[in-house]
């Protein structure tokens, strides 16, 4: 039954592809197919539940697919051939639904995994006429294929008995890490997300990159030392988290910022998993319980909130025609519902209460603090590092999202004048996702026993950690925030009723008579101090053309922050290999006598080699 959901999605995809010429028909088939497959998936889960891990990695797809499908209806209007879009959208969803179920046989998994890469590649370059997309598509394809190659190596090594375990381990972690955006391997994320259509980014970021972690946990880790697994995830996750959020800060492209934030969140999930494994290695019950819950909650929270944010970015792009934060501003007045949803999701994803982002991070913090209080020095170091990284990341995320929200939605419009109105097809799914987020905050305390029953691990004693009480308290204080704010709002209203009137006027700009939108602080300006603070890591590129002379006419200032891994690691590596292949190329001179000479030398060398050995 549960495989049927993937089957339906695949069938709907093929059907939509067949209706390539008839856009409307393809759309109907696409949306209906997505919804049917999701319903089939939910029915399948209820009738014959899959294992806990599979369920966990299916859930984000099941939630995000229908939301993204509804959003796509409005998004792809006038953006290209709907048949192709819906076809590959459903095929991608089908592969993503099938993957978590295929944890028995790696070969099947690998085939579907490769298919997922190819299908999503078509979606990423759906808007193929754009010039900059060529580079992006190339990078995405390379990343997918490099991951596939590493996984094939991993598969081959798993058969060879004498093969070094280290190589096996590294190949697996790197192969899956390419999808999960681990440090240095994250290169495709900030390129592919801004280029892909917004609903596709939502699915890729919320559900697809998690699958990399699924692969690591299910295929690479079994049989490995738990403490090694824990440290790997913790260290890689920690670097991803901090690096991701620091590079998110200076980005001007809204979706690029969100893509870096995805790297950060996958890092947080890895850290939570790492804490779980370390807790397992040192038999620390509370660390395991909090770690597992933190992982589960953060995967789902990230899917919901990042989905909302990417869909919001899609609406912003459709309304204003740009994704540059510095060019927008004041979108809240044109797209109020989108703006409000985006703000709420941004606050939630910074890990702040009263949204669901907080309870996930609370669990991870508690896992870290359990390690700190445990008395084992490895756990203590791990806990201190994890907690410190989480808090620094939280504060940086506040800054990054304050920039995203403030620059895009608040204040006055800077360059975008004719902004289209928002459409209910686009903000409806966002409201749905946000509703689910709130539902999670208040339902999790009651579902904890259920979660551990599904996980089916009898060795974990969740009751002794008091986790239910903690979640219940967190939910109550979130509720208290709503209540208290409402009371204060009512109080303000009451005070106001008693005769003092409100007035409206321009913003008081410290005596300046005619403030204009050009004087407003842009997103980049907001982050400039932070960029300077972390410049030794970010290496921001500045291009200054200072005003000259008595009556300066022209002056300009530009700053951009290209990816550090690309600039300082991959670019030199690729330049080196390009240089080497240039040199090797000289042998291919086209002269016959040169080839004969080379062959003679080789033969002589081989003979000498044979004699010596």
């Amino acid at each position: 039954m549960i495989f049927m959901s993937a089957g339906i999605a695949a069938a709907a995809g093929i059907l939509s592809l067949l209706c390539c010429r008839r856009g409307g028909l393809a759309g109907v088939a696409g949306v209906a197919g997505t919804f049917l497959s999701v319903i089939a998936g939910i029915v399948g889960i209820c009738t014959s539940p899959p294992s806990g891990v599979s369920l966990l990695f299916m859930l984000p797809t099941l939630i995000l697919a229908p939301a993204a499908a509804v959003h796509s209806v409005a998004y792809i209007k006038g953006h290209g051939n709907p048949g192709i879009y819906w076809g590959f959208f459903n095929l991608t969803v089908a592969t993503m639904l099938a993957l978590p179920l295929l944890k028995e046989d790696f070969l099947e998994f690998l085939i579907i995994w490769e298919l997922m890469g190819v299908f999503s590649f078509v979606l990423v370059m759906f808007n193929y006429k754009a010039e900059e997309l060529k580079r992006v598509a190339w990078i995405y394809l390379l990343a997918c294929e490099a991951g596939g190659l590493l996984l094939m190596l991993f598969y081959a090594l798993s058969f060879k008995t004498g093969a070094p375990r280290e190589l096996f381990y590294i190949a697996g972690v790197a192969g899956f890490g390419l999808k999960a955006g681990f440090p240095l391997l994250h290169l495709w994320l900030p390129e592919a997300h801004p280029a892909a259509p917004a609903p596709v980014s939502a699915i890729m970021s919320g559900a697809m990159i998690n699958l990399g972690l699924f692969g690591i946990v299910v295929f690479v880790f079994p049989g490995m030392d738990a403490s090694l697994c824990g440290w790997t995830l913790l260290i890689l996750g920690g670097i991803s988290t901090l690096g991701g959020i620091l590079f998110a800060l200076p980005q001007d492209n809204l979706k690029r910022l969100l893509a870096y934030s995805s790297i950060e969140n996958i890092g947080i999930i890895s850290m939570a998993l790492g804490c779980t494994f370390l807790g397992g290695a040192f038999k620390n019950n509370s660390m395991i319980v909090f770690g597992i819950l933190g992982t589960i909650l953060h995967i789902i929270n990230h899917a919901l909130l990042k989905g909302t944010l990417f869909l919001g970015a899609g609406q912003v792009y459709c309304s204003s025609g740009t994704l540059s934060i510095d060019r927008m501003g004041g979108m809240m007045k044109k797209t109020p519902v989108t703006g409000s949803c985006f703000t709420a999701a941004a606050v939630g994803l910074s890990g702040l209460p009263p949204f669901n982002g907080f309870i996930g991070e609370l669990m991870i913090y508690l896992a870290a603090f359990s390690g700190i209080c445990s008395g084992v020095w490895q756990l203590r170091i791990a806990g201190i590092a994890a907690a410190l990284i989480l808090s620094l990341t939280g504060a940086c995320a506040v800054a990054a999202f304050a920039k995203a929200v403030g620059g895009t939605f608040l204040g006055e419009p800077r360059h975008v004048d004719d902004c289209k109105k928002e459409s209910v097809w686009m903000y409806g799914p966002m409201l749905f996702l946000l509703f689910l987020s709130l539902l999670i905050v208040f339902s999790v305390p009651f579902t904890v026993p259920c979660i551990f029953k599904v996980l089916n691990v009898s060795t974990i004693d969740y009751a002794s950690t008091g986790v239910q009480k903690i979640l219940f308290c967190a939910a109550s204080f979130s509720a208290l925030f709503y209540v208290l704010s409402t009371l204060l709002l009512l109080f303000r209203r009451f005070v106001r009723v008693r005769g003092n009137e409100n007035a409206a006027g321009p913003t008081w700009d410290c005596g300046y008579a005619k403030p204009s939108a050009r004087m407003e602080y842009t997103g980049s300006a907001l982050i400039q101090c932070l960029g300077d603070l972390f410049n030794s890591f970010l290496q921001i590129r500045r291009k200054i053309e200072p005003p000259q002379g008595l009556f300066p006419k022209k002056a300009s200032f530009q700053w951009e922050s290209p990816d550090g891994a690309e600039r300082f690691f991959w670019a030199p590596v690729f330049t080196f290999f390009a240089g080497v292949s240039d040199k090797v190329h000289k042998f291919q001179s086209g002269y016959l006598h040169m080839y004969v000479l080379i062959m003679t030398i080789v033969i002589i060398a081989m003979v000498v080699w044979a004699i010596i050995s």
Partner: protein
Amino acid sequence: MIYWILNLILALLLAPVLFGVLNKVKAFFAGRKGPRIMQTWYDIFKLLRKGTVYSTSTTWIFKFAPVGTLAALAIAMLFLPLGFTESPLRFQGDALLFLYMLGLGRILTVLGALDTASSFEGMGAARELEFSIISEGTMLLLLIFLALQSGSCELSSMFCGRGGSFWLKAAPAMVLAAVALYVVLLTESCRVPVDDPETHLELTMIHEAMILDNSGPDLAFIHYGAGLKLWIFGAILTALVIPADTFVPWAATVIMTAGCFLIAVFVGITESMMARYRFLKVPQMLMGGFCMAFAALALLLISGGVK
């Protein structure tokens, strides 16, 4: 529990008075008479009776920001060991909820500032974001420090469950932690040398720049919230330094209240003795606080004051 509630009421009533004391100290150093001790309360009541001017640039976020900030600060206060009594609302992990409620207040203030489209408020917001990253990291290190000392993640138990002898076990670490917390206090409550709330130039403010456009009851909420924040950090610093949880309740209450006012006096003296740092220099000072907290943690782990 009764004592905790009485302490809470005391804190809610006395928090704005801290500014009165602080300003009196500053006035004393400047040879002035200074505003009355209860001046902040008078200001709040005056503002509550006034109308509000909302800029045409703003949206609901600007209107909600002061309310949400105050609510977040009030909730953060519920986990404190007020009067050295464990909070009845405590739970494992409330220390982090406390930290994140302060963060929620911060992002709401920042968003409210950005909503006005004013360059000065943007400037204030940018600085607030920069400094808060370091001070939040310092705060977390101090929480880890306390968790190690007390073996608990409950904010109240962190302070009350350490036993009386923690000074004997790790005196150098305690001194470092207290200084680091004082730096955080100065940052979070926007005082000299990080921020000067009384400068006449908007260009050089942080917190006051962010609330330039607020007026009426909104401004009253903000002033009251600032008082609460100073009380929160004063109470934490007092509870960190003084092992008074074994005292009789009324004595503990007196000590905590006196501690908060003493810290206000200290802040006043600090403000009178030194000028605000240049903004480029502030992160250095905050990093100093961060390093001190880190050193305190390391010293604690080495010297073995760990429970």
